[in-house]
């Protein structure tokens, strides 16, 4: 992965990642790591929760203090819950990255970032994690921004494509992986988009001159989780369709689409096929990935 990376240098690497070569796998020369993003010349400290001083508050107020910071490496210092065997770096150390003195900065800049295949892959995986993090956090009581979702989704797809192109390391033959990196990712994206549709789907308002969509979307033989389809049928106001789903027991996996999804459960044993399971799936891949 990234040997020799300490948590101390973790935060500073965020800015050095900005001078990443553009195309996956290319070997363009990298400019020397610039002064970290948000760090002021006079060495002023950032916010207590580790955010760079110049960063906006929007989109970060929901973050746990000192949590999830910087794209790489994804393990060190990352608040990974529910996965045994991963060391949880003290949250305080994240903050330490920004409160360091200017002299420490210069020390770090001499470390060259590894842009070989391993470094690139970890960068991509880190971006992947940031993107998934964004999607997860944006589902809340406020209606999410569709534009933001679509842009993050498209970025996720590019990352997925890039990760697939890179030689994937051999995965242990466990059934839960299915040997396909695609499956968990696209299911995650798919379920996120469908969840978005449920919460933003057209209602049958009488003033709306546009005909509300019929139940064409409710095709049963889709391989994706059926429970989300059952939920979306509630919003189409078609009682016939509701009856159709009565025999399916959705109590184990059904959840309120409008509430924010819970944090990744501390309980390691999730229901197979659920959203959390796929997320976990993905986390395991990253851990075992390099």
């Amino acid at each position: 992965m990234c040997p020799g990376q300490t948590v101390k240098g973790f935060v500073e690497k965020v800015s050095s990642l900005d001078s990443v070569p553009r195309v996956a796998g290319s070997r363009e020369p990298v400019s020397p790591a610039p002064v970290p993003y948000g760090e002021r010349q006079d060495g002023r400290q950032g916010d207590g929760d580790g955010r760079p001083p110049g960063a906006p508050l929007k989109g970060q107020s929901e973050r746990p203090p000192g949590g999830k910071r910087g794209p790489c490496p994804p393990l060190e210092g990352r608040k990974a819950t529910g996965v045994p065997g991963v060391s949880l770096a003290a949250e305080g150390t994240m903050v330490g990255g920004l409160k360091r003195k200017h002299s420490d900065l210069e020390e770090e800049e001499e470390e060259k970032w590894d842009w070989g295949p391993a470094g690139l892959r970890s960068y991509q995986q880190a971006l992947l994690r940031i993107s998934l993090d964004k999607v997860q956090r944006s589902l809340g009581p406020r209606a999410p921004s569709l534009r933001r979702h679509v842009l993050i989704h498209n970025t996720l797809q590019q990352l997925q494509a890039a990760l697939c192109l890179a030689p994937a390391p051999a995965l242990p033959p466990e059934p839960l992986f299915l040997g396909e990196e695609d499956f968990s990712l696209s299911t995650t994206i798919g379920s996120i988009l469908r969840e978005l549709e449920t919460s933003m789907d057209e209602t049958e308002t009488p003033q709306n001159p546009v005909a509300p969509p019929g139940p064409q979307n409710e095709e049963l033989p889709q391989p994706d989780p059926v429970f989300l389809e059952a939920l979306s049928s509630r919003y189409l106001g078609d009682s016939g369709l509701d009856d159709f789903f009565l025999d399916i027991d959705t109590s184990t996996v059904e959840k309120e689409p409008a509430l924010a999804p819970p944090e990744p459960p501390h309980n390691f044993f999730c229901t197979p096929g659920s959203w959390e399971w796929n997320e976990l799936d993905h986390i395991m891949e990253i851990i075992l990935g390099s």
Partner: protein
Amino acid sequence: MALNYHYHKVMEETADTFIEIFKGLQERFPNEIQTNKSHPHSRGEYNVYSTFQSHEPEFDYLKSLEIEEKINKIRWLPQQNAAHFLLSTNDKTIKLWKISERDKRAEGYNLKDEDGRLRDPFRITALRVPILKPMDLMVEASPRRIFANAHTYHINSISVNSDHETYLSADDLRINLWHLEITDRSFNIVDIKPANMEELTEVITAAEFHPHQCNVFVYSSSKGTIRLCDMRSSALCDRHSKFFEEPEDPSSRSFFSEIISSISDVKFSHSGRYMMTRDYLSVKVWDLNMESRPVETHQVHEYLRSKLCSLYENDCIFDKFECCWNGPDSAIMTGSYNNFFRMFDRNTRRDVTLEASRENSKPRASLKPRRVCPGGKRKKDEISVDSLDFNKKILHTAWHPSDNIIAVAATNNLYIFQDKVN
């Protein structure tokens, strides 16, 4: 006269000069003095004209979602009488507001007394005609129309048509056409929602009517494309008449290419010949007759290109900046971070970075141009990229339609700048 040796003489001469200047000023320049008094803006002072609450927060119980009262767009209607009309919209509802002044009130009603209480009819012995008396200026804002329930997704644009009768409203996936008088009906003219939402890869980001041709409008997308539609061709403008897209530069491709190409604002020039689009790092001017590429590209803050990863992480990369033309279409303006805003002169090809900040400029002093140092050695008076404050973003700017006066919104302050009056 050397000041040291002839001090007293210099003082006398100076005093005499001043007296000459000011003597008879009132008689010689009565018009100019009057103009100065009646136009306080020439002295750089503005007062709030009116404040009113346009929208209230709502809760959609069916979907368990809050609908914010935050106003996304405001558009003035062309003025037809003494009152001003504007359209304001939040995510879901558009409202037409009438703003009118009242500086007289009637006194001497017959049926009610000065407190407004009804008079006892038996007490009325004589009739009188009410008299209009002056009063302190009162500005009233009243909602005239409410256009609701036509958008499933968040409204991002409204645009008044040149026919002064219709307007369009655009959300992420649909554009609706309204008549200003009719609130219970709108016509859907663009719909890009896919049958399967999982296939959604592009959303509408902005839309505007052509300033002169009432059948033409454009809409921009999150993929950096602009489509021009003609409403005469069909009722549902699913097929564009023109498609504007600049081919991507392969050497600058990154994971963020699409996000930074997302257009946040599109504005026609006053002439109607050009349109301007704002994406994350640049402003582009397009000739409506050429779809293959813009005729001008102006870099707003290219030094941020190497910071895209961080800007993605802290969400700044999703900020939506607006842009505007000046009256003659010779200059364009847009905002940036750190309370900076940029102006580009299309004729001289010169550009300038200015700052809207109370701390860094005195009232009535000329604004000093700013420079951002992209990296490496920082010269004196330059600001390094890493000391930029990304909380202080200027998303909204406006240029007076005929004068050189601009309004710049910096977080919770409004700045109004104008050309220096000689």
